[in-house]
């Protein structure tokens, strides 16, 4: 192959509130104390990762009318943790999910612009949307958004935020005591944005940060989500980490870019992935199987099955066969506060398919859930995993990966110590940071001030 070898991007996800995180492992530390965040972030920085990533939740999940208690519950405020991490790291990008539905552009733009200054240009925003009244019950505006409006609000939200980021070019702060000129332009920070969702105007309070704008990340697999990413995002989180699905997703989103005047390298594809490492491939397979059994206890299997069946299945034996009854197609859903529930678009068809799989493989409920809930995982020796990651990136199934350790906070150590050096030896991953900002790590330029704000 004459094509130059692509450089791999890597990020570390702080494990959170889902069954991937094995809190019962004796090595599992606090999910809320700051020391855990420092530990994972410093490991990621030692390994020269592009960024640290923190997800967000705005309402505790419920199932069958009660707070879901089997997974890790509770997390800190995204902005506050990232700003504090900026004090104990130097180069690592600091990415956080912030919902565009239960926030306002002025406030979020201010917080991200502040974070970019306070971190010396390392801020990234994972823009997510929500619409459900369940989460809305924690907010002034309530559940006011129709589901079909969530991307239009997100698009306008991001547009408004971009205008705010651009409203105050930093070059316009001479701060010259002799001339008595702190700002050059008396109307600095002026903005005005009106559309179907927002009617806002006034003055912004934060000059452009070192990155111009924070790096924009986006997750979402629907057509609307892919289009939103193609138009506005610098990187997209995906679920498709296998070769074929990855390549299909990769070419699909990159194909959408020219319509927005963008080139393929302006949108990175970063699937999430877990990993299990061992001294031999067989050893790693064994470890992975143990981890999967830890992630899917009998109870967890029943609760996850309930999410498709939309029924109370607590009377069933997780080591027994699937329920004979069909999923309940009623409007009220047994699980609330989970984005994944919406993925079961056709529960009857999915249930039929699961039954067939269970019968064919003689699988219990727990066995089946272990199979169907599996996500992209790198399993093997460090050499096997380094090979696999490199191969997927070189063959355009991804530009890199967001690694989700299953233990907090030291679950990244082994990867950092064994896989990263191998990638470095191959010349596909940095051995030192060459830039200061996250945009520089990702090969993204500082965006020009947009027309609307000029």
């Amino acid at each position: 192959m004459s094509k130059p070898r692509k450089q791999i991007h890597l990020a570390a996800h702080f494990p959170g509130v889902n069954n991937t995180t094995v809190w019962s492992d004796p090595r599992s530390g606090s999910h809320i104390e700051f020391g855990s965040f420092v530990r994972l972030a410093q490991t990621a920085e030692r390994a020269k990762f592009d960024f640290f990533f923190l997800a967000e939740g705005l309402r505790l999940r419920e199932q069958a009318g009660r707070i879901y208690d089997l997974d890790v519950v509770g997390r800190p405020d995204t902005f506050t943790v990232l700003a504090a991490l900026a004090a104990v790291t130097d180069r690592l990008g600091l990415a956080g999910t912030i919902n565009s539905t239960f926030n306002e552009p002025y406030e979020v733009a201010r917080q991200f612009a502040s974070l970019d200054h306070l971190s010396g240009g390392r801020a990234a925003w994972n823009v997510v949307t929500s619409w459900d009244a369940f989460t809305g019950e924690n907010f002034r505006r309530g559940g006011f958004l129709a589901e079909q409006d969530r991307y239009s609000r997100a698009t306008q939200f991001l547009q408004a935020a971009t205008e705010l980021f651009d409203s105050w070019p930093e070059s316009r702060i001479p701060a010259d005591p002799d001339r008595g000129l702190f700002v050059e332009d008396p109307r600095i920070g002026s903005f005005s944005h009106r559309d179907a969702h927002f009617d806002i105007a006034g003055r912004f309070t934060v000059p452009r940060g070192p990155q111009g704008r924070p790096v924009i990340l986006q997750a979402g697999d629907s057509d609307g989500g892919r289009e939103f990413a193609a138009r506005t995002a610098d990187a997209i989180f995906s679920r498709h980490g296998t070769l074929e699905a990855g390549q299909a997703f990769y070419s699909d989103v990159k194909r959408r870019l020219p319509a927005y005047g963008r080139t393929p390298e302006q949108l990175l594809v970063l699937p999430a992935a877990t990993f299990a490492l061992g001294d031999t491939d067989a050893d790693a397979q064994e470890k992975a199987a143990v981890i999967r059994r830890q992630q899917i206890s009998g109870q967890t299997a029943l609760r996850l099955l309930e999410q498709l069946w939309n029924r109370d299945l607590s009377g069933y034996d997780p080591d027994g066969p699937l329920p004979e009854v069909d999923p309940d197609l009623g409007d009220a859903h047994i699980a609330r506060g989970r984005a994944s529930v919406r993925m079961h678009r056709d529960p009857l068809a999915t249930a039929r398919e699961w039954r067939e799989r269970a019968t064919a493989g003689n699988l219990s409920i727990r066995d089946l859930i272990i199979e169907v809930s599996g996500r992209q995982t790198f399993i093997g020796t460090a050499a096997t995993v380094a090979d696999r990651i490199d191969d997927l990136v070189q063959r355009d199934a991804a530009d890199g990966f967001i690694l989700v350790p299953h233990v907090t906070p030291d679950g990244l150590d082994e990867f950092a110590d064994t896989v990263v050096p191998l990638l470095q030896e191959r010349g596909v991953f940095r051995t030192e940071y060459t830039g200061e900002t996250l945009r520089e790590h990702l090969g993204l330029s500082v965006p020009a001030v947009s027309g609307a704000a000029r």
Partner: protein
Amino acid sequence: MSAAVPLHLAVALDGAGWHPAAWRAPHARPAELFRPGYWVDLVREAERGLLDLVTIEDSLGPQSSRRDGHDDRTDQVRGRLDAVLVAARVAPLTRHIGLVPTATVTHTEPFHISKAIATLDYVSNGRAGWRAQVSGRPDEAAHFGRRTIPPFRIDDLDTPEVQDLLGELFDEAADHIEVVRRLWDSWEDDAEIRDAATGRFIDRDKLHYIDFKGPKFSVKGPSITPRPPQGQPPVSALAHGGIAYRLGARGADIVYVTPSDAAHGAEIVREIRAEQAVAGRAGETVHVFADLVVFLGDTPAAARDRKARLDDLAGAAFASDATVFTGTPQGLADLLVEWRGAGLTGFRLRPGTLPDDLEAITRALVPELQERGAFRRGYEATTLRGLLGLPRPANRYATGSDDEQAP
């Protein structure tokens, strides 16, 4: 009150200092106001002086010399970073001092503020506080586009329309603070159980819906963030009169006030104590700190000259809502000790210039107060509540488990 009761000391950080020309003073660092190192240096200096806390000013719109909108001035500091994030950025690099960012209640979500301050408490190991600020500015409302706040003049303050508007804003603020506090309590301290035997990470009976319903908003809860280390980080508010004193007495742990002299201070303290009793909080500690803007010098003349030079640069004599002190650190110590007799429990000093007046506070005023036995010689507690003499509060939702069954 006996001289043995030490006073509490806070410093209010804002831009290059509180004088509008402070950024032009010789030691000012105006080009660094948006850089983290500037804030780290200031807060570390305050910590060297053993101060209880720093507040960090903020607003949801740029500074202005007018209260009804932008002034289009280019000769003063405009713009600032989000105060909660500044406090978080400083937290891991300091160890003892309380960090009290300002966050506006009028346009923000109590759910977000509750978890942000709780998280500041986690990242600072129990040193977070919050200054809750009401915004009555029409321009800030326009930044959110959800409500309009009509412009009003200070001269019209006593008209029924303005009083109604303020009443509404302050009632909403009281609800906001109440929601934030309930969310802090929405997790019992021992809710996380990690019970491998039953597979339960939390005991969900120790998480509570707050079910708040008010005229402006309702919030279900519980918080997504577990109860912070202090249980309830101290809440503070600046108050200039009756309606704001009531808010402070109802919801705050510290009220910053602006007396003109000791007698006025005593009057304000009486008023706040009365409101506190009305609110059913007579038995609780509510600190009343007097705000003072300070310009300090080795001699009274040096301090006056320094302020006069800044006034010249600004083109007007400096005026403030708070009393302006110009003089020596010894003179300021005299004043603080005298005012303390009015029942004020501490002071929030607003440095006229940064870092000069901050350094005068930490390096000259503090030793002076220590000499007089009026200020600590070392940090005696690791949390902000501890420094303020506030006990860690019980959780209002606590289900009364084992540890409360003492005979």
